[in-house]
């Protein structure tokens, strides 16, 4: 069993038991359990979450952040600091016209505006921000949100 095979299955359905995964990969339950434990300890598996369609609740914003890198630390320390806010769902260092892409979830537009102006933009090292609000999710983590009912095969065929 390869690490990639186990991760591919878990990324598709993290609820599968070690027995079910063993059946799908044709290996023993003990091998699956051991590989999973190793991946968790190494930090390759960071956690197990549920993909929720939250388009109808609250607001989500993607904020482009330009900032000044620190001598010796680059963008890491500032990114870590931004990531610690509960409102921040994800945070990436990007190439291109800005440095950090920060996703923020909040109850309403005003809450996002307050977060940006009071917490994010005022951090030392942050030069500017540009906030984009999500209107609709089409696909997340490989899952389609607006899939039509799947086409059914005929149930008996030669």
């Amino acid at each position, binding site marked *: 069993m390869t690490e990639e095979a186990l991760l591919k299955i878990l990324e598709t359905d993290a609820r599968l038991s070690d027995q079910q995964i063993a*059946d*799908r990969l044709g290996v023993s339950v003990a091998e699956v359990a051991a590989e999973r434990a190793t991946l968790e300890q190494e930090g390759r598996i960071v956690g197990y979450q549920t993909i929720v369609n939250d388009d109808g609740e609250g607001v989500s914003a993607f904020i482009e952040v330009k900032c000044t890198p620190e001598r010796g630390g680059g963008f890491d320390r500032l990114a870590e600091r931004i990531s610690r806010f509960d409102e921040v769902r994800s945070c990436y260092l990007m190439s291109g016209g800005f440095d950090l892409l920060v996703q923020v979830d909040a109850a309403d537009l005003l809450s996002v505006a307050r977060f940006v102006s009071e917490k994010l933009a005022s951090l030392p090292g942050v030069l500017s921000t540009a906030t984009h609000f999500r209107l609709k999710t089409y696909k997340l983590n490989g899952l389609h949100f607006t899939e039509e009912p799947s086409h059914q095969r*005929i*149930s*008996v*065929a030669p």
Partner: protein
Amino acid sequence: MDWNRTLSKQVVDLPRSGIREFFDLVTGSKDIISLGVGEPDFVTPWNIREAAISSLEKGHTTYTSNYGLESLRRAIARYVEGFFHVSYNPLCEILPTVGVSEAIDLALRCLINPGDEVLYHEPCYVSYAPSVLLAYGTPKAVETSIDDLFALNPAKLEAAITPRTKVLMLNFPTNPTGSIAPKETLEEIAKICIKHDLFVLTDEIYSELRYDGIEHTSIASLPGMKERTLLLHGFSKAFAMTGFRLGYACGPKELIEQMMKIHSYTMICPTITSQEAGIEALQNGVTAMQEMRDSYHRRRDYIVKRFNDMGMDCHLPGGAFYTFPSIKRFGISSKEFAMRLLKEQKVAGVPGTAFGACGEGYLRCCYATAFELLEAACDKMERFCASLN
């Protein structure tokens, strides 16, 4: 209207497919898990679908040559040479058809004079005998058994040959048994065909779907066989393209030319959309195909183990996506087993007899079904088998 006088006797006398009868039963049932399908559970890979869409966008909505697009034939020639190790001239030895089924029909009509005998191994795909009958030939089944893992036994083949025998039809990996023919067996069969001057139609539609780690051998690649073999292949199973209805025949130009004649009068060509999608499949679809194959492989291992654990004797099939477990120890017929399994546990498998009389005592179960459905079907079948003990 006097239908007795109006309809063709040849067609009226043609038996209905045994699978058809079962299909009517299953269609009337609700919430069943079907292991009775004969096609992949994957949707055609996106790049191939995209090529079809793009073909339509560009306004490619015309007929093509009766020989199909030359670019498709060149792609087929390259693929066949790489995979089967036989080279065919794309200009005169390859004919794209509407699935392998059309190619079988064309070939039989081109080869058979009334009364010529055609041998094929049973259990087999449901269309072989009817296609021979429609060409006014005489179909003759050579039974295979679990003793040979459902591969054709060369001695049994030779015993079935008569002075009227003209054609041998092969299908490895086999629908419905998943069996494969070892290279040594194919070599013996090839010698018999040369000795008795038989022509071979080899339907190798499942050839990419092999799980035994052994490279697929086509009888067409064996010495002295290319000139007497028509290799039939297509896109349906390996590339999950059943609905595109695209197959091809590769063989001697004398036969291909005659087949093209009927094809030009009856079918003209496969849709250009499918042909252009087929080119994409051959050029850029192999990785997706291998991923699908690996997925079938894991499902095969799972279902065969479960079947054996629940008391059905099930050999490990080397290819295709079918298992053919024996239900003989339960002391009821294949049909009764399938009917009761459907009624009592809502799981559909196809009675082995739908694929020939020697399929009695077996059930065809297709594992090209989502893993969680396979798990549920196996749990239900386990309860059913326990209730029979």
